[in-house]
C-alpha cells in the first residue's frame, strides 16, 4: 500500500455510484498508471534521528519503479530498482549493485518506516481481502469506512485493515492491525493537489502504533504522467546511470 505512493500515477474511473471494489482498486492504483515521473521528499523522524531525503522517481505499469536519492549528499545517487518482486540497490560510492536478500526484506528502506517488503509487496485491497462497509457517504458528505479481512490464500501479514475514504473517493486513512487486533500502523493521506489532470493527495504519512513520536512522511514535489518513460529505465544497467 506504500507502493502506490512511490509508484505514482493512477487509473480511477469516475462512475456516478462506485462499487466498493472500484473504490479499493482506486486506492490500490492511486498513483499507478501507464507511466509517471516525479520528485518527492521523505521526512523521517525516529527516536534516534530525523532526516529529510529528496528522491526522483520513475514508474511504469504496476510493477516497475526506479527511485534515485538526490539528497542528502551522503546518500545521493543511491538508486533502488523494483521489478516485480525483486529489489536492487545501487551504491555509487562503492559502485556496487546489491540485490536485497530475503532476510533483509523486512528491514527499513532508507531509514524510514517503510520496509523493503512494502516496496515490492503487491497485495491489493481489492483482491486479497474480503470487506464489510461500515459507513457510506451521503452525496458529498460523510466518508467511506471499509473493514477488510485477508482471504485465506492471501500472502498478507495483517489480521485486519480498516480503510477510510472521502466522499471524493480518495483515501484518507488506512489502519493496519495484527492477528490479535492490535493497531500496528496508520497511514494517512492529505493535501489533495492537482498534478496535470489528476487530483491526488500529495502527502502520505506512515505512523507506527508502538512509537507515537515517530513517523515517515512523503510529499510529492513534482508529478508528471505525460512524459514517456522508456522500458530501459528499469534495467540493472540504468541503475548506474
Amino acid at each position: 500500500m506504500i507502493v502506490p505512493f512511490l509508484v505514482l500515477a493512477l487509473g480511477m474511473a469516475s462512475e456516478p455510484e462506485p462499487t466498493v471494489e472500484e473504490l479499493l482498486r482506486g486506492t490500490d492504483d492511486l498513483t499507478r498508471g501507464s507511466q509517471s515521473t516525479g520528485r518527492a521528499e521523505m521526512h523521517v523522524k525516529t527516536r534516534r534521528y530525523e532526516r529529510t531525503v529528496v528522491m526522483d522517481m520513475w514508474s511504469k505499469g504496476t510493477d516497475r519503479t526506479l527511485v534515485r536519492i538526490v539528497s542528502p549528499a551522503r546518500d545521493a545517487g543511491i538508486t533502488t530498482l523494483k521489478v516485480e518482486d525483486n529489489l536492487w540497490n545501487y551504491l555509487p560510492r562503492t559502485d556496487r549493485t546489491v540485490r536485497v536478500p530475503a532476510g533483509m526484506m523486512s528491514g527499513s528502506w532508507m531509514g524510514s518506516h517503510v520496509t523493503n517488503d512494502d516496496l515490492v509487496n503487491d497485495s491489493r485491497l481489492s483482491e486479497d481481502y474480503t470487506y464489510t462497509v461500515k459507513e457510506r457517504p451521503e452525496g458529498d458528505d460523510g466518508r467511506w469506512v471499509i473493514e477488510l479481512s485477508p482471504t485465506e490464500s492471501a500472502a498478507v501479514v495483517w489480521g485486519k485493515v480498516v480503510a477510510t475514504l472521502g466522499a471524493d473517493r480518495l483515501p484518507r486513512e488506512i489502519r493496519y492491525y495484527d492477528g490479535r487486533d492490535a493497531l500496528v500502523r496508520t497511514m494517512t493521506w492529505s493535501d489533495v493537489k492537482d498534478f496535470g489532470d489528476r487530483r491526488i493527495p500529495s502527502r502520505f504519512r506512515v505512523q507506527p502504533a508502538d512509537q507515537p513520536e515517530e513517523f515517515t512522511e512523503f510529499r510529492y514535489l513534482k508529478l508528471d504522467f505525460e512524459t514517456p518513460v522508456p522500458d530501459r529505465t528499469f534495467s540493472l544497467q540504468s541503475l548506474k546511470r
Partner: protein
Amino acid sequence: MPILLIMAWRNLWRHGRRSLLTALAMALGMAMSMSIISMYDGMFGIMRTLMIDQLLGHVQITHSAFPTRRGLYDTLHHADELLSRLDALPQSRGAVARVHGQALLGTEHRSAGVRLVGVEPSRELAVTKVQDTVPSSLPGGVDPGRFLADEPAREIVIGYDLARDLRVALGDELVAITQDAYGGIGNEVYTIVGLTRSGDEAMDRAGAWLHFSDLQALLALDDQVHEVRILAASDAQDVVGGLLDALPGALPDGLIQDDDATAAISPWWDIDPMAAQMMEMRGIAQFMVLVVVFGLVALGVINTMLMSVLERTRELGVIKALGLRPRGIVWLVLYEALLLSLLAAGIGTLLGAGLIAYLMTIGIPMDVGEGEGIGFGGIVFPSRLYGGISVEAFVEPILGVVLSALLAALLPALRAARLHPVDAIRAE
C-alpha cells in the same frame, strides 16, 4: 635423633636395588606430573592471553544495554576523556575504545554477514595483543600480511577462514554494506592488508578489523564508541578488584546520553562466565592428576616399606629390647621413607626439568588437519602446543612425592612400633 637418621640411611641401602627402583618409579610419577603442570601452564596461558588480552579485557565499560542487545545506538560519548582518565589510574595497564558493527562484506561474487570491530591500532599495541592476531605465517605458505596502520586508510584485516570463504587474498578490495545510524545505506571499499588467525573462532570465521575512524564513518557514528576495555596492571584478584572499585569515580559526565540507560562496568568473569569457569577448571583438573599420580606413588612406597619392616622384624625386636621407644621406631621408618622420597625428588626434578625443557622448546603437535588446532569453547588452540614453566610445576610435585611417601610410610611405621620385643625376636 641423628643416629636414627643415619640408621635410616643405612637401612635404605641394605636393599639398594629395591630402593633405587622404588625411587625411580616415584621420580617418574613426579616427572609426569611436572610435565602435565607444564602443559597446563602452556594451555591455560594461551587461553588466558586469548580471553583476557584479546577477547575480553579485564573490565569493559559499555552502555547498559550493549552487552545483551549490541545495538548500534548503545554507545558511549566522550570516550577520549574516559580513556585519559583511565590511563591515569594506577590499577590500569591501559585502556582502548572499540566500535562494533555488522555488515555484509564481500566482492561482486561472494559476500557474508560479518562482525566488524573498529580499533585504534596505536593504542591497542600498548594494551591488548590484537596485533598478534595476524600470525607470522599461515598454512600453505600464505602471506598473512600485517595489522592495520595507525592512521585510518580504509584498510581491513579479516579472518583467515573468512578470506578462504570469500576467495580473497591480500591486496584485494572488499565492499562493506550496512545500515548506518541515520538509517541510510553505509557502504565503503576497503583493501585487505592482513589475515588473522587469532584462535577466537567467531572472529576467524566471520570477523574483520577496521580502524575505528573508518568504522565510525561507515556507521555514521561520529565520535561515539560501543566499548571501552581496560587491562589491569596485573592479573591479581586484588588489583582487578581495586580497578573495579576505582572505575565508577572515573566516568566522565555525559558518557551515556540515553535517559533510560546507565554505564555498565563489567569484569571479564561476568562478561563470559563460561570462560571464567574454564579457567577455574584448571585448579581442579591439576589437583585430580596429582591425586592419581601420587596415589600410585604412595602404593609403591607402602609396598617397599612394608617389606622392609617385615624382613627386619627380629632386628626391630632387638632394637626395642635395647630400649628404643615405639616413637623412635616410627621415626626410624618415616626417616627411611623421607630419605627415599628426597632421593626420588632429586631424580624426578632432573627428569621433569628435562621434560619441561622439551615441552617448552619442541612442544606437542595438536594438528587436526590443515594446520588447524583443536577448538574448544570458541577458542582454537595453535596446531602445536608448548609447555610453560612456573614455580608450581616444581613445588607441587616435590611436595607431592615427599608427603605421599610419608603418608604411605605411616602404616608400616605404626605396625613396627606396635611389635612386642619378645615376639619379634622369636619371629622367623
